[in-house]
């Protein structure tokens, strides 16, 4: 069998399985309420919750973008292991307080917290819509990155028989199909299978790569010979960027809509904390592994620059597949694992987007079955738009992640501070969010992603927090309602 046939058969079998899972999930549904569709009836146990958190967090960006970034930046990209872990650390500030309130109030979307915390009067509703719009823009950006990654991998898995454009359109249609049919249950179950496939594939690939190069020490020596800067101790600017990225990812991920919805979807608080206790180890088995794969590619592949470096992983896999029939099969499995990870992130993003736009932006009721129908239609519309944008490829996958996080991080005061400080008020929080988002967007438009190595989004979060906190301390209570009690 040729690589194209082998890949095509593998892809076909995998997509058929997804359709079966979607049908099983559809039959398992209890009713047509948003809680059942978007949160799987709040019944996710430890194992499925852990794997769905894992497959959602480790996306196409992790599998294609991170090796590409390690290839571009060298060993300092070890920071990725730290910032992916910081996400699970940052959840300590949110989960223990948000979970009991979410269960008692029946939250479905992140905006439900804002409604509960800041009330329905004064600046509260505007804050809820503003945060939802910001989250939606960030999620749409994330969806775009997944679709681009899907196109690259589908083309690679079938040795070019399926072109990039066909991969984007076809796989987007499959994701939309099973997400619409099976909701969070289909998403979580496919995530579980996808997570296992990804773990196995990456581990096997790393062992082969290091074996080929003669071990880790020899790989480091080879990198040092061809790119001494990749091995040298980073300068102060890169260290500042390292700390800034840990802050950016850790804090922004606290308000990751699909992660917040998994806090709501857990069967119990006990299941949730156990799943998070397991999740904290995953950067060592995934991010560290893909970073080493990107680094090992430095002496193997030369001259890849800009967006092209995002193809490091597929190129390495191509070499692996050429090493023999056994490795061709394994390489195909890794690519399918990568595709699975990308699709699992795309489906979670799409599910969150549908619910946020229907409920938080358009104001539909969280117990109304028509909200579920509207959420599905919105998801279809957003997917169609994202497909059109994904057909043009200009930004690197890592830059897309940074843009998403720089917007998301502006929602931190409403959640992080709102959960811990009773005096935080809606008006100043809204003003801080607006100013922070404007500064972050200005950084993008002026092509100044960092100042002194620190992300513009992190600087603007400082400004955002200062406005929210200082404004809340001012005696202006007559301008808006007092915060609602939980």
């Amino acid at each position, binding site marked *: 069998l040729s690589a194209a046939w082998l890949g095509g058969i593998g892809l076909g079998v995998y997509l058929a399985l997804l359709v079966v899972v979607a049908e099983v999930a559809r039959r398992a549904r209890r009713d047509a309420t948003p809680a059942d569709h978007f949160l799987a009836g709040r019944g996710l146990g430890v194992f499925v919750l852990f794997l769905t958190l894992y497959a959602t967090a480790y996306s196409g960006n992790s599998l294609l973008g991170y090796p590409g970034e390690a290839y571009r930046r060298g*060993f300092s990209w*070890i*920071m990725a*292991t*730290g910032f992916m*872990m*910081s996400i*699970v*650390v940052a959840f*300590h500030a949110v*989960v*223990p*307080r948000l*979970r*009991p*309130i979410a*269960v*008692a109030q029946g939250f479905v979307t992140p905006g439900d917290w804002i409604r509960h*915390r800041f009330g329905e009067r004064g600046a509260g509703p505007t804050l809820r819509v503003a945060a939802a719009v910001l989250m939606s823009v960030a999620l749409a950006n994330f969806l775009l990155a997944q679709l681009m990654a899907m196109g690259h991998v589908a083309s690679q898995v079938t040795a070019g028989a399926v072109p990039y454009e066909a991969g984007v359109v076809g796989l987007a249609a499959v994701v939309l199909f099973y997400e619409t049919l099976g909701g969070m249950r289909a998403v979580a179950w496919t995530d579980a299978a996808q997570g296992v496939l990804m773990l196995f594939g990456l581990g096997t690939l790393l062992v082969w790569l290091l074996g080929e190069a003669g*071990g*880790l*020490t020899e*790989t*480091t*020596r080879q990198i*040092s010979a061809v790119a*001494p800067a990749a*091995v*040298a*101790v*980073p*300068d*102060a600017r890169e*260290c500042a960027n*390292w*700390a800034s990225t*840990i802050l950016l990812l850790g804090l922004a991920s606290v308000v990751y809509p699909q992660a917040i919805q998994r806090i709501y979807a857990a069967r*119990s*608080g006990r299941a*949730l*904390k*156990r799943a*998070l*206790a*397991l999740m*904290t*180890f995953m*950067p*060592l088995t995934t991010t*560290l592994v893909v970073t080493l794969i990107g680094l090992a590619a430095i002496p193997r592949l030369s001259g890849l620059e800009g967006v092209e470096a995002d193809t490091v992983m597929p190129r390495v896999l191509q070499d692996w597949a050429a090493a023999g029939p056994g490795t061709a099969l394994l390489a195909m499995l890794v690519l399918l694992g990568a595709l699975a990870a990308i699709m699992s992130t795309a489906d979670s993003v799409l599910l969150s987007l549908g619910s946020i736009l229907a409920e938080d932006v358009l104001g539909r009721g969280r117990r109304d079955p028509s909200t579920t129908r509207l959420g599905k239609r919105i998801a279809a519309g957003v997917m169609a738009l994202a497909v059109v944008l994904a057909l043009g490829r200009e930004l690197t996958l890592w830059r897309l992640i940074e843009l998403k996080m720089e917007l998301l991080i502006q929602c931190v005061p409403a959640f992080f501070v*709102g*959960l*811990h*400080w*009773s005096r*935080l008020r809606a008006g100043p929080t809204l003003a801080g969010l607006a100013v922070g988002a404007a500064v972050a967007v200005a950084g993008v438009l002026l092509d100044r992603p960092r100042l002194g190595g620190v992300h513009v989004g992190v600087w603007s979060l400082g400004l955002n927090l200062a406005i929210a906190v200082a404004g809340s301390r001012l005696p202006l209570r007559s301008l808006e309602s007092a*915060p*609602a*009690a*939980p």
Partner: protein
Amino acid sequence: MREPGAEPTRTRRRVRGALLVAIGALYAISIPWYRETGAAPDTWLGLPEWVTVAVVCYAAVAVLNSLAWLLAEVSDAPGDDRGGGGP
């Protein structure tokens, strides 16, 4: 009179707090801001030494953070969280 179970809960909170502080310290050590910039490093365990330090720090963060989660109180009933300062 002290509430039954209050002392173990307080101890768990203190231990969890100490673990989170230790995690913060490990993050600070993981970034090589205190090293000479541009220096060609020795190799430890197959990696440049400053990279090995970072990996060891992150492995320790994983262990401490996992323990911190197991000690966390994530209740399903409002009011069970006695952390104080809620909205």
